[in-house]
């Protein structure tokens, strides 16, 4: 964090390391965030998007990965429309760190890390907080990673949105989740007012029009009426409750404009923290574990990060 607030945002930690961002889906903030994180740490960051690359010539994910491995890259940051694509690469590549920057509707782990970081920074703790995630849970990899992350850190997570946009297991949790599963305790409701009651964190999810293939709800008008997070609704939450959004926002749909830019919003901080969290992650995964163990000079530099 400290490095990001300096006049000259540059430390030599990852000098001579090569990081490729391999994006099979459109992205602005995540890709730039990783790129900035890498560049601040002095890594050479190469951006590759599926459009305009050999992927368009039909190259498979495996061969693209093997090609990057042969070029000696240290880390691949991958975003892919299919769940498990990073796992697939990690299984087939050797000596290359693979970082998941979002895979299908499965996970977006760095987003969850930055969300956790932001909440702890603002509220001082995670244990025992009530976290409400509102909107299109079914198509949201952010929701799934947050669900996992916040549950693991001892928060009570409530999901709220149209029943048609909830994974069906959550609609019949007693049948679906094995006993003692960490996610078995997740609450679910379609009533936003009830969900927000006493909440410490309210996270609005982007309505993912590009992932929805059929009409999951009657109209945007009805969606807004039932599930838009507004100043009015937030009154039911705790006094210092945080309003979050993974971005990009559809202002006026899942979140009202005044709330998005109001005092309780930490949406901008989420973005800043994203760079810091990704710097930490790149450091962890790119620097040789042995060097860390030896408490070499790189570790002392890392402490400055």
């Amino acid at each position, binding site marked *: 964090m400290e490095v990001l607030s300096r006049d000259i945002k540059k430390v030599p930690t990852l000098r001579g390391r090569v990081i490729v961002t391999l994006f099979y889906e459109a992205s602005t903030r995540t890709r730039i965030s990783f790129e900035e994180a890498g560049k601040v740490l002095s890594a050479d960051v190469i951006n590759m998007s599926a459009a305009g690359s050999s992927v368009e010539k039909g190259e498979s994910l*495996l061969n693209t990965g093997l090609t990057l491995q042969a070029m000696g890259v240290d880390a691949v940051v991958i975003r892919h429309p*299919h*769940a*498990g694509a990073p*796992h*697939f690469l990690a299984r087939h590549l050797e000596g290359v760190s693979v970082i998941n920057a979002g895979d299908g*509707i*499965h996970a977006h782990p760095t987003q969850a890390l930055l969300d956790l970081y932001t909440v702890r920074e603002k509220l001082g703790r995670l244990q025992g907080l009530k976290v409400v995630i509102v909107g299109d849970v079914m198509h949201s990899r952010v929701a799934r990673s947050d669900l996992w992350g916040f549950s693991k850190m001892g928060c009570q997570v409530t999901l709220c949105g149209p029943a048609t946009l909830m994974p*069906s297991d959550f609609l019949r949790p007693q049948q679906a989740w094995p006993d003692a*599963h960490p996610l078995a305790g997740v609450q679910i409701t379609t009533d936003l007012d009830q969900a927000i009651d006493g909440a410490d964190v309210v996270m609005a999810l982007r309505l993912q029009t590009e992932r929805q293939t059929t009409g999951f709800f009657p109209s945007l008008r009805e969606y807004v009426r039932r599930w838009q997070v507004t100043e009015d609704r937030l009154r039911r939450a705790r006094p210092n409750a945080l309003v979050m959004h993974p971005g990009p926002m559809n202002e006026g749909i899942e979140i009202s404009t005044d709330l998005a830019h109001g005092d309780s919003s930490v949406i901008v901080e989420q973005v800043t923290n994203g760079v810091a969290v990704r710097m930490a992650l790149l450091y962890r995964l790119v620097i040789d574990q042995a060097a860390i163990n030896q408490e070499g000079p790189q570790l002392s530099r890392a402490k400055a990060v």
Partner: protein
Amino acid sequence: MVRKSGSILSPRTILIRGGRLIDPSQDWDLIADVLIQDGKISSAGSIIDRTSIPEHCQIIDAGGMVVCPGFIDLHSHLREPGFEHKETIATGTRAAARGGFTTLCCMPNTEPAIDNVAVVEFIRRQASAEGAVRVLPIGCVTKGRKGKELAEMEELAAAGVVAFSDDGDPVYDPMLMRLALCYSRDLGLPISNHCQDNSLSRDGVMAEGWVATRLGLPGIPAAAEEAMIARDIALADLTGGRLHLTHLSTAGSVSLLRRALEQGIAVTAEVCPHHLSITDRWVLGGKGADVEAAGPFSYDTSTKVYPPLRADVDVEALLEGLADGVIACIATDHAPHDLASKQVTYQDASFGISVLETALGSLMQLVHEDRLGLSTLVERLTAGPARVLGPDFQDLATLRAGTPADLVIFDPNKEWVVDPGEFASKGKNTPLEGTTLKGRVVATLVEGQVVFQDDPISGRVG
């Protein structure tokens, strides 16, 4: 049709001595001998006196082994013509022989599809020239499997197809399914429908449930199968046609089938070895172990199959339906794929498992765990499928004297580790890779010829 396998030249007379004969067609479970002469069973069920053993007779000592009619598979994909890089009739039938199957019914989703006599004849010719076991083609319900208009079903029947199916796809249009069931009544052959309502399964790749949610993979609800089965049962009732339901996978499907049979509707069904033995937890990695989170072994594409692997309750219901005979038979849905079709993301991977060579071993697990009786298992692999095929095929599922000597000898207790590198099938796609199975085929005979023989068998030509 039947041929030599490798360098093994089968003598005209074979005595299989001292095996445990399980023949559900005669309610047999006894220790006795089988004598084979000129491709037929000349006697079985008694101990043959040492002095009356014919000359130049190969003797196979089957002590401790099970000897039963060869298995009949109502559902396999041999991929030829059109997809010879995945499987051929030669490799698929050798895989069958290694798995104890002596008869395969091959599905018509080839290229071109089996929707005309020329393709039927091509398959019969290939099977005769290169096949290790019997091959019975299944014809398309609709021209080109396009689901628009009926194929020339009578001509296909006359050419020797044993059933009709657009497998890989359902007959989706309910009116067309009605017509198919009605039109085929006088042909006496079943319509074998792939039970999948595409508008419910959509882009799903595994069973809907907590594992799919955890992995972020689009799910296929049980209702996608059950809705189609409910519809087909209603249409079978309406038309009086013969309906066969492929690869049942859900508890709800078993209930629907049970109720239809109680009402006297002409319907039969099959279940696959994988749906009886493994669950959707296998997609998480760790071969079904309790794994909480996704890891590098998650998204194992060899577990991707249609219908998808489901939950424990479904497995239990399927086993119950199989045990009480509601489900008539076990079929493999052997679906071999090349590596490139599976070495991709889970969502891009092709559906299907290479089953023929692991079927017996994985089913014997259930016997060893006392979840399935041995004679029931044999029945569902022999007489059960023969009943679905009809009266003309009963001779392929019995050890009665005078019938073709199609039989299998297997060691119920032999443990082995699944190594797809040893498969005869071109399809190495199995989630069982590296697992230990107990129960292995020792020898397979088709019309009295040994088409597969495992090493440890002790035989001598005397």
